[in-house]
C-alpha cells in the first residue's frame, strides 16, 4: 500500500503495473526518486540525450497547494533547451515592477528593467503544478520520439541497500512491494528526503524563528501586475511584512509574516485570514474586491544543506540536498540548475565517455551554488526579521532613508531574485584567453543575444559547442566519441558583440552542454580546445 500524503492538482503519471514487479531485481542505469521539478527535468534531459531514466514517485502527479510561483530566466532557458518552456511563458504572468511600502507610506518602486535581446523574460509567475505538468507534457512528447524515460506513479521507495557500484531499492506499490537496482540513484525526493534519512545523513543549517501565513486568493481585481511588499504593514494583525503577487488564473499570492509565537490553528481560521486580506486589499483603494480563499497554509522556513551532495553511487539534487527560505525564489530555480548540471555529466559517464569522477564536480559546483543561494536567502530573511535591537535600528534607518534617498534603496532587501552562480576558479573551467566581457567569462552561464534566426541560446547546449565570433575561422573538432559541434557567427548583432566580444574583432568560446562557458580565446586553436574539453570532462 502506498499512503497518500497530499492531494494532487494534476494527475500526470497514474499507477500501472510493470514487468519489473514480477521479476528478479532489474538493473536500471539511472533511477530518480521523486517527480518534482528537479526529478522531472533531470529525467527529461537524460532521456533526450538517449540515456534511460526511470522516475519513481509515491504520488501520481503534481501536489496541490502553495509552493513555487516565481520562475527565473535561467530556468526558462533550461526549459527552452528541453522543449518545455513555451507553454510556461504563455501561461505565466510576466512582471517587472515592484513596489516597496513601509507602514502607511510608499517607499519606492523599482523596475527589473530586463536587458533587451533575450528570448526569455527575467521572471514569470506560474504555479508550481503547472510547471510540473508542462515538464511531464514535454516528457510525453519526448517519449513518443523514442526518449527512454519512464515515470512510475504510486511507487514509494521504502528502503535501500548500497553496494560498491549499484544500489538496491525496495519499492512499495498498490500491488505490493518489489525491488529494483540502480547503477546511479538520484535522490530528488524533496526537503524531507526519505533517502537521506535511510542513509543516516544530516541536513544542517538555520531555522528562521518565524511563521508565514500564505494565502492564495482568487479575485478579478484591477491590481497592477506588480510585486507589492510591505515592511511593517499598517493593516491590523498583519505582522512584520506582507507580500502581494499575481499568478495566472486570477490567483494572487499573499504572504503575512506572523512572528514566532503564534497559535497556528487560530491563525488559520478563515475569518481571521479574511480580515487580514480585506485590510491589505483595501489599503490602496479603500474598497475590498470580491475574492475567494483558494489555499491557505502556515510555513516556517529554513536554510540548510547536506555537507556532500554525492555519496558514491547516490547523488542528491534539489530540495533533498539544500533548502532555502523562499524570499528570492531560489528553491525550484536552483534545483533545476542542479539537474541540468548533473544530466550531461551522468550521460557522458554512462556512455563511457567520461570517468565516474566527473560526477564529483557536480557535487562541488552545486554545493557552491547552494551556498550562494543560502547566503542570499539568509540575508533577505535577516533584513525582514531583524534579530537584534541594533539590526532593527539599522533596518529601520535604511527604510526611512530609502523614501527620499536612492543610495539606501539597494540596501532594502525583500529577497534578491534568483540568478545562476558563476563557477569562478573551478577546476573544470579555463583558460580565459580573451580579455573579454566579464559576463561571459569562463564559469558563467552564456548570456542570451539575438542572432539572425532567433536567439543565441537556441543554438547552444545539449553537447559541447565551439562558438566562433567575428573573424574567427573554425574547423571541426574531433574529441573521440564525445559530441562537439561548431557554430560560426561572422556578423554578430550589437548585443552579441557587446556580451561576448567587447572591443575585440574575433573570439572563440567553448561552451558546456549546460550552457556554461568553459574557456575562450581570441583565435581558433584545435589543440587548445581539445585540452579544454578534456579538462571539462575530467579526462586526464
Amino acid at each position, binding site marked *: 500500500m502506498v499512503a497518500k500524503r497530499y492531494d494532487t492538482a494534476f494527475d500526470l503519471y497514474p499507477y500501472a503495473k510493470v514487468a519489473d514487479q514480477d521479476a528478479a531485481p532489474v538493473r536500471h542505469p539511472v533511477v530518480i526518486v521523486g517527480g518534482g521539478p528537479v526529478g522531472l527535468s533531470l529525467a527529461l534531459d537524460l532521456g533526450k540525450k538517449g540515456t534511460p531514466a526511470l522516475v519513481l514517485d509515491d504520488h501520481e502527479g503534481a501536489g496541490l497547494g502553495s509552493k513555487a510561483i516565481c520562475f527565473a530566466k535561467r530556468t526558462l532557458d533550461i526549459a527552452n533547451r528541453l522543449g518545455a518552456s513555451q507553454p510556461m511563458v504563455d501561461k505565466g504572468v510576466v512582471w517587472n515592477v515592484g513596489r516597496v511600502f513601509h507602514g502607511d507610506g510608499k517607499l519606492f518602486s523599482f523596475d527589473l528593467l530586463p536587458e533587451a535581446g533575450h528570448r526569455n523574460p527575467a521572471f514569470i509567475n506560474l504555479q508550481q503544478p503547472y510547471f510540473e505538468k508542462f515538464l511531464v507534457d514535454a516528457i510525453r512528447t519526448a517519449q513518443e520520439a523514442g526518449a527512454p524515460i519512464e515515470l512510475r506513479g504510486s511507487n514509494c521507495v521504502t528502503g535501500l541497500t548500497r553496494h560498491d557500484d549499484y544500489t538496491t531499492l525496495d519499492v512499495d506499490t498498490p500491488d505490493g512491494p518489489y525491488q529494483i537496482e540502480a547503477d546511479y540513484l538520484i535522490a530528488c525526493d524533496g526537503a524531507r528526503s526519505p533517502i537521506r534519512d535511510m542513509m543516516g545523513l544530516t541536513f544542517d543549517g538555520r531555522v528562521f524563528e518565524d511563521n508565514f501565513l500564505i494565502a492564495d486568493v482568487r479575485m478579478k481585481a484591477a491590481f497592477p501586475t506588480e510585486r507589492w511588499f510591505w515592511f511593517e504593514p499598517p493593516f491590523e494583525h498583519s505582522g512584520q511584512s506582507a507580500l502581494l503577487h499575481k499568478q495566472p488564473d486570477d490567483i494572487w499570492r499573499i504572504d503575512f509574516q506572523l512572528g514566532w509565537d503564534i497559535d497556528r490553528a487560530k491563525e488559520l481560521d478563515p475569518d481571521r485570514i479574511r480580515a487580514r486580506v480585506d485590510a491589505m486589499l483595501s489599503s490602496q483603494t479603500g474598497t475590498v474586491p470580491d475574492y475567494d480563499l483558494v489555499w491557505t497554509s502556515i510555513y516556517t522556513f529554513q536554510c540548510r544543506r547536506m555537507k556532500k551532495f554525492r555519496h558514491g553511487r547516490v547523488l542528491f539534487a534539489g530540495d533533498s540536498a539544500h533548502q532555502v527560505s523562499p524570499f528570492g525564489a531560489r528553491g525550484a530555480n536552483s534545483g533545476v540548475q542542479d539537474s541540468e548540471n548533473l544530466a550531461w555529466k551522468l550521460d557522458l559517464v554512462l556512455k563511457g565517455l567520461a570517468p565516474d569522477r566527473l560526477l564529483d564536480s557536480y557535487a562541488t559546483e552545486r554545493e557552491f551554488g547552494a551556498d550562494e543561494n543560502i547566503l542570499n536567502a539568509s540575508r533577505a530573511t535577516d533584513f525582514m526579521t531583524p534579530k537584534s535591537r*541594533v539590526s532593527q535600528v539599522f533596518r529601520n534607518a535604511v527604510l526611512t532613508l530609502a523614501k527620499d534617498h536612492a543610495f539606501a534603496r539597494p540596501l532594502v532587501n525583500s529577497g534578491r531574485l534568483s540568478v545562476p552562480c558563476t563557477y569562478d576558479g573551478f577546476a573544470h573551467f579555463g583558460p580565459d584567453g580573451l580579455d573579454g566581457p566579464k559576463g561571459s567569462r569562463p564559469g558563467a552561464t552564456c548570456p542570451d543575444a539575438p542572432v539572425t534566426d532567433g536567439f543565441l541560446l537556441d543554438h547552444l547546449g545539449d553537447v559541447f559547442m565551439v562558438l566562433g565570433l567575428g573573424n574567427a575561422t573554425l574547423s571541426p573538432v574531433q574529441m573521440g566519441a564525445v559530441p562537439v559541434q561548431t557554430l560560426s557567427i561572422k556578423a554578430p548583432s550589437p548585443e552579441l558583440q557587446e556580451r561576448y566580444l567587447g572591443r575585440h574583432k574575433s573570439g572563440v568560446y567553448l561552451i558546456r552542454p549546460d550552457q556554461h562557458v568553459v574557456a575562450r580565446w581570441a583565435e581558433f586553436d584545435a589543440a587548445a580546445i581539445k585540452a579544454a574539453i578534456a579538462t571539462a570532462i575530467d579526462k586526464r
Partner: protein
Amino acid sequence: MALTLMPNIPDPDGFYDELLHAHDALNDQESEAFNARLILILANHIGDRAVLRAALEAAK
C-alpha cells in the same frame, strides 16, 4: 564636492552583512558606542565640513 546620495557601495548586501556582523558580540550599549566611533571615523575620512553638514541634514 557635494554629498553623494546615489548608490555608491559595491555589493551593498555584502556591506550590510559586514556592518551587522561587526555588532555580533556587542550588547546594546556597546553597539551604540561602536556606532558613534564608526561615525566619527567616517566623518574624519570625509573631512569636508560642507559635506558633513549636508549629511547631518539628510539624516534628520
